[in-house]
């Protein structure tokens, strides 16, 4: 038998199927603190959150609904937000995506885009309000509006990237 080629009907590596989505979200969360970028305002889109939402929209059944807790906790360690912010908000987003996937019978690309953009806007706004509880609400929200717009426009790109990772994840040996 040819050892190098894939055997017929053999499934993809179980480890790779599980690790690729989690690792991509964790790496994207930690990436901003690996770049030599000193930002004066929130200039980068929330990379970890974008990957998290795209994986959930692409493969709703892949993760249990509580996956936002560990992944959000990891994101909190790097985002500068108080610990627990993303853990709570990401889990709520996860529940919202599961709910919407039950309600919308045929979810298309535009649905996915709209859901992701809406969730990003809500999560980033609430996170900013949790980070600065004593500051002026309008000003805090004004800070993150450009970031939300950029993130919403980047959703299709991240959907594509997630799709590429998904192909790699399910590739036969």
């Amino acid at each position, binding site marked *: 038998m040819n050892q190098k080629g894939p055997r017929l009907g053999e499934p993809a590596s179980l480890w790779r199927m599980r690790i690729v989505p989690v690792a991509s979200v964790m790496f994207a969360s930690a990436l901003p603190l690996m*770049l030599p970028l000193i930002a004066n*305002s929130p200039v980068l889109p929330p990379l970890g959150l974008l990957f998290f939402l795209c994986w959930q929209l692409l493969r709703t059944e892949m993760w249990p609904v509580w996956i936002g*807790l560990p992944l959000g906790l990891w994101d909190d360690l790097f985002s500068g937000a108080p610990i627990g912010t993303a853990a709570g908000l990401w889990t709520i987003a996860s529940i919202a995506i599961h709910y919407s*996937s039950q309600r919308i019978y045929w979810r298309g690309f535009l649905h996915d885009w709209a859901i992701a953009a809406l969730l990003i806007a809500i999560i980033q706004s609430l996170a900013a309000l949790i980070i600065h509880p004593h*500051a002026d609400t309008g000003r805090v929200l004004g800070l993150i509006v450009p970031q939300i717009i950029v993130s919403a426009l980047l959703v299709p790109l991240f959907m594509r990237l997630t799709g590429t990772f998904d192909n790699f994840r399910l590739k036969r040996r």
Partner: protein
Amino acid sequence: MVRPAHRRPGQSRKAQYSLFVAYVIAVTGAVAGLLLAVLSVVDPVGFAQLRVASQEITAPIARASRSAIGSISGIDDTVGAYVAAGTQNRRLRKELADTRRELVATSSLQEENRQLKALLKLQETDKTALANGYLLTSTSTSSKRIALLSIGRNLGVAAGQPVRGADGLIGRVLGSGPSVSQVLLLTDVDNIVPVRRARDGLPALAYGRGNGDLDIRTLNIANNPFKPGDILVTSGTGGLYPPNIPVAIVVRRQDDGALARPLADPGKVDAVSVLRPYTPDNIEAQGLPGPAQAPAPAGAP
């Protein structure tokens, strides 16, 4: 994408229970997480150690990428500079002419000041740095402005110490790990610095706006005495920042004060110095005569 079927797990009790348990975990976890977030807002240093520890992991990569690429700084500034290039050019020329005139006037005063200070043997001890380091990276996805400093407890950096660059104040240390520490930048929304106008000592407070600028508010609301071009320095009030560190320059007047731009842009500054906090103990310790003189930081004006 068709609706997934797993929400109706059929007759299997095990499948029903595991789905139910997943939702219970998710909801309780989300509530607990948000509670935790509110708690750590109330007690911001409680989780700082955990966060610093995790950033020790990424720090080596940040160091490597910094030395490979250099510092990517001020993307927003660069874009803004293109948009406002014309008006800025005109304004800068006018400012340059004004500054030249003032420079001539000030240089004589400066010389006189130097002589008087030498006469009084005033030591500028408040400028002695505890340690020098680099800003490695910063949070760039949230509205919190925290930068990572390349030195930590190994060089004596501890929470509450002010950080300055050659041009002015950068911020203060929020927490320190074994080899890196977190710096809350001057422009963070929660950072308030007591300042005074360099010209006449008018006291004011500088509030971060979160987008790279500062709000300056006077303590008396009756009039708005600020003019564009006013230089603000730390006043030493409140006991954290030593006095006379340059902070910001007023850009324009506002209804309730002024809009100012920090003199030291953390994105462009190369090396920073960590100073001793301005507390009574440190002031007395530094005031003592003797061999306690450390060399001034390289870029100190």
